[in-house]
């Protein structure tokens, strides 16, 4: 099979790292060769955060080329647009319906683009817009938005649901397993 690419973008502190961990471990359970690249450092200070995952029979580069992501999983709207050039023609954008204004906007120096949802609906062939924050709040913990989005991704990519549940049980601290499994299944059903 050809190598598949999952590009995750978001803002420091949104749980993209845990999502990446769950997805990659589940891919290994599927028997794939997997590589993942993350950039740490200054990005942790509220900056833009990117995780790149590649899987297949044999993976060489840990980074994804522009125009080749099968999925762009964006935890935040502005961060979806920033990396939209990575999405392939038939790729799917999974968009968290959430705006986190950057410091420059909060300080009134720049404007947050208003038309992102419109842009996505009008321009992206395959786009899923998910209000993961509201769904996570309904489940009782806003932090599980990352696993809701992971559930949606698993459905889009036709991954084995049970393998993801198994990995969540392994990597999440015991007292949070139940809500995270619920979050995953909820995200899975949203697609």
């Amino acid at each position, binding site marked *: 099979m050809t190598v598949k690419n999952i590009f995750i973008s978001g803002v*420091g502190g949104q749980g993209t790292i845990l999502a990446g961990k769950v997805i990659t471990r589940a891919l290994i359970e599927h028997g794939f060769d997997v590589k993942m690249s993350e950039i740490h450092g200054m990005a942790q200070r*509220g900056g833009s955060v990117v995780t790149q995952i590649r899987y297949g029979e044999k993976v060489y580069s840990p980074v994804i080329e522009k125009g*080749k992501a099968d999925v762009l999983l964006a935890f935040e709207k502005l961060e979806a647009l920033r990396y939209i050039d990575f*999405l392939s023609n038939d790729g799917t954008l999974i968009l968290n319906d959430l705006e986190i204004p950057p410091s420059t906007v*909060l300080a009134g120096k720049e404007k947050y*683009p208003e038309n992102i949802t419109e842009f996505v609906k009008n321009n992206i062939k395959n786009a899923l817009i998910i209000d993961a924050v509201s769904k996570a709040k309904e489940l009782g913990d806003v932090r599980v938005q990352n696993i809701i989005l992971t559930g949606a991704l698993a459905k889009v990519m036709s991954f084995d649901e049970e393998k993801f549940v198994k990995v969540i049980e392994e990597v999440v601290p015991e007292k949070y397993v139940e809500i995270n499994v619920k979050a995953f299944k909820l995200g899975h059903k949203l697609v």
Partner: protein
Amino acid sequence: MKKEFLTGNEAIARGAYEYGVSFASAYPGTPSTEILENIAKYKEIHAEWAPNEKVALESAAGASLAGARCIVSMKHVGVNVAADPLFTLVYTGVNGGLVLVSADDPGMHSSQDEQDNRNYAPFARIPMFEPSDSQEAKDLIGIALEVSEKYDIPVLFRITTRIAHSRGIVRLGERVKREQLAYQKNPQKYAMIPGFAKRRRVNLEERLKALKDFSESFSYNKIEWGSIKEFGIITSGISYQYVKEVFGDDVSILKLTMTYPLPEKLISEFVNKFEKVYVVEELDPYLENHIKAMGYKNITGKEIIPGIGELSPEIIREAFGAGKAKVYYKPLENLPMRPPVLCAGCPHRGVFYVLRKMKAVVTSDIGCYSLGVLPPLEGIDSILCMGASIGMGHGFKKAYEQEGKESPLVISVIGDSTFLHSGITGLMNVVYNNSNTITMIVDNSITAMTGHQHHPGTGYNAKDEPAYAVSLEEICRALGIKNIYTVDSYDLSAVENAIKAAANNKTEPSVIIARRPCALLKGKGPKGLYKVNQEKCKKCKMCLKVGCPAVQIHGEEIIINPLSCVGCSVCAKVCPFDAIEKAGEER
């Protein structure tokens, strides 16, 4: 066999464990930090944070002399700090194997330069290995340690950000059983007075000759033959993965893993097969120049491959004529940037607010507080390298003094960890050379930027065990500083008054220690919450000038986001209308 999904850094730590390392030292620096953090988890290995990279390497040199296997890790610029012991350690050689990991940062994701540390290998005459993924990183640590012991020489282990922070599947092994090697006194080998060093210098060339033979037959230096007849590619490290991504098995590749000394016969065998050979390497034309110097005319590289920044498969595709990557969806233009910011409650914020207000020339240093250079604080004039703030502030003042002119207000701003790393000697120089500089140590009681590592001032060591905490005040006093002001970083008027008092002293140097633990340190951050009283707010936007991510403008209204506010009170202190009020004790 057990498999794990490891970063390059985690794989190196695992390699240190499996291949019998018992001593590890490092100073934190992106992208190298997690190597020692992961090694510290193994009880079989003594792991420590050193105050700087030079001390780390010297400590490892001692442990090696005593027969232990050692690993030292640092970021690329850290090797500059450790270069002094390094160059002579190559002469003395080792007893227990010693590996120095240099984590380079092409593209400068979190560094002040992108120097290519492969150049250190021929300069210092130290053998060098470059892994191309996590599995190789782990395996090569074992080989590097063996080579170090067999050829009596330290080994340079060069990785880059994409190796350090990329994950791949790694097969795990058990820890080898290894006895500490016996120590035998041998000053002719280990005490480098000129008479002994001259002999070791000659002996070094013999060791390098033997290493060259090793490099020729080393199985990780290998040719992968492909079907394309017109040209071949020589590559190493992460660039190998990118070349494979672009060409698959079609192109013939000479993959070099031991990149000093180079396997010249193997290179000849490869180069002679093709009309044209391209060298694909990140940053400097290191391999290219060395191969060209062997006399080959059919070598090219930097003519088509950029020498600045990181490579990627698409850059290589474009270099070989495939054109620009096809982009289906274009990003909207003029998207707001999302630069890193000082966190809500960061104790550095108020300090830079005051410095800007006082129009000080600020020579600063490397750490979270480097972000004080960005808008809206814009409170920094210069950043050079670890520890440079104090020397630069001193030189700046002296230049004016020498001309008989009055210097502007100059303040050297340095963090606690950076001060202990390489600020102390700068301050000693200030006192010794009769300067009246102002040094401000912004003490957040941790090495924060790299993710909260302990240092000799925090009271804990790399294994989280209690340790002696050195006192910054006592160090300054011992250096001869008589005027020391310790203030709370959140108390902006105290910070300002201390600067004024220091500036009024025209004969003696002063140190201001602005102290507050990092707001992200568990249990050490402030407690509470502030809100804007909209009736009192005149929309003057003074509070926005402190650049706190919790202070936000929504339409015309300024609010404090209760989810981000930690209650540091800095915004309340800058508000001229007392419109920012305490809203609670707990978040």
